[in-house]
């Protein structure tokens, strides 16, 4: 038990004054990527800054993706149009997808976030309870299935703004589960 030092109090005040959401400038990307270079052999708890950097990547990616989707939404009419066929598939972002360049870029940002968090989770997998890992993996499979289904539909109807927004939301929920799993304490 210890009382917070005065610097903590000052930090609390400054933190409370911050806005809840902020979109970091794009020029930060280079340094963020450099900070994300994997370093193995350290305990997870000794690398809190790496989790923080991953969180920042997620925040930046989400912000950029949201901006992209919002712009797309502004350009497209807000009426749901039916895809010709919504065939579930599991394409990877690295394949050449028949999506508009804007959506491809958005997806690549999401994929980078997913991969960074997935690496963190894999490093910590052995320290987590098997039941927790099973829950996380089950949720990720559900999210992947939804992403694939929305993506396949988008390939057939790339101007559908409702679909684009749902596609982005599926990724954001998946990233959120990964982020939370990567931050779990050992043996939980």
């Amino acid at each position, binding site marked *: *038990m*210890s*009382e*917070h030092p005065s610097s*903590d*109090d000052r930090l*609390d005040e400054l933190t409370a004054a911050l806005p809840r959401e902020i979109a970091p400038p794009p020029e930060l990307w280079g340094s963020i990527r450099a900070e994300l270079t994997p370093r193995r052999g350290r305990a997870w708890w000794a690398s809190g800054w790496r989790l923080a950097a991953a969180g920042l990547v997620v925040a930046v990616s989400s912000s950029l993706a949201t901006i992209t989707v919002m712009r797309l939404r502004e350009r497209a009419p*807000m*009426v*749901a*149009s*039916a*895809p*010709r066929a*919504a065939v579930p598939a599991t394409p990877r972002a690295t394949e050449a997808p028949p999506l508009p360049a804007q959506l491809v870029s958005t997806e690549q940002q999401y994929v980078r976030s997913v991969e960074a968090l997935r690496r963190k989770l894999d490093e910590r997998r052995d320290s987590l*309870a098997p*039941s*927790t890992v099973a*829950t*996380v993996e*089950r*949720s990720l499979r*559900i*999210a992947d299935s*939804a992403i694939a*289904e*929305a993506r396949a*539909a988008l390939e057939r109807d790339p101007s*559908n703004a*409702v*679909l684009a*927004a*749902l596609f982005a*939301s*599926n990724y954001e*929920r998946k990233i*959120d*589960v990964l982020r*939370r*799993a990567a931050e*779990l*304490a050992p*043996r*939980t």
Partner: protein
Amino acid sequence: MIRFATRRRYLPSARVALAALLALATHAGALQAQRKVWAAYPATPEVSVRLFASVGAVHVIGWDRDSVEVSGAVASGSKVALGGPQTSAARGLKLFIEAPTEQAGREGSLTMHVPRRARVWLKTGSADVTVTDVTGGLDVNVVGGSISVHGSPRELRAESMDGSVTIDGAPEWMRVKTATGDITLRGGEDVGASTISGTIDARGGEADHLKLESTTGTIRFALTLARGATVEMETHSGPIEIQLPRKSAAEIDAATVTGQIENGWSGIKPEVGREGRGMTLTTSGGQLGGRITVRSFKGKIMFKAP
């Protein structure tokens, strides 16, 4: 015959007695394997308390005293860092209990009293967390346990992986997230709830600014709308059930990609999408009647009146 009958009559009783003795011994062993903890500190009314506790249950209670008190029993062998006595009112406290094994982390329970306006940050594994009468900030993170919040914290963040989250107050600001756990809430001023496959149930209160989203989980909305409310609901494949008063002046904007929309609330018929798949439903309402936006890939959207 008599001896045989006697043996048949008494043998089950003997087994029951033996089983009871074994159960008692096991229970006694479990009790012996736990260690009592108690600590108390003078604290400011808005003290920040951070508690990491791997125990079976945690109960946080807001009270009208300027002190923090922690009591309960934890698995023996746990690392306990509750600190020493304080001479002045603490503005920040960090409490830590780590069990030696995952199984041990499911044992024992803690009760923590805090000033009502305290800011509480609580992280645990499989504990069932109950928070009562805390009006300050609250941040609860569990993996497998449940979260129940009674009362209306000013700010509330509750995250669980597969445990359920129940909020029976109306916090000013609230964010709830689960992976597979169910979420039950009663509204609030600025509310967000998100799940992958859990159910979201919003009923019994008022919605101001609210967003509910799921991937496959069911979403049920039966809140009253505040003046000028904005409500968004979104799912990939879960059904969305929306209950509105028949005379509600809400403006509706609902769209699916391939899912159906049923309108049992008003006489307006949903329209089928351009190529025969997906549906939309739009209605206009009064300026202060609130706006409800619903999006679904293939989950069914149902509007109904009470």
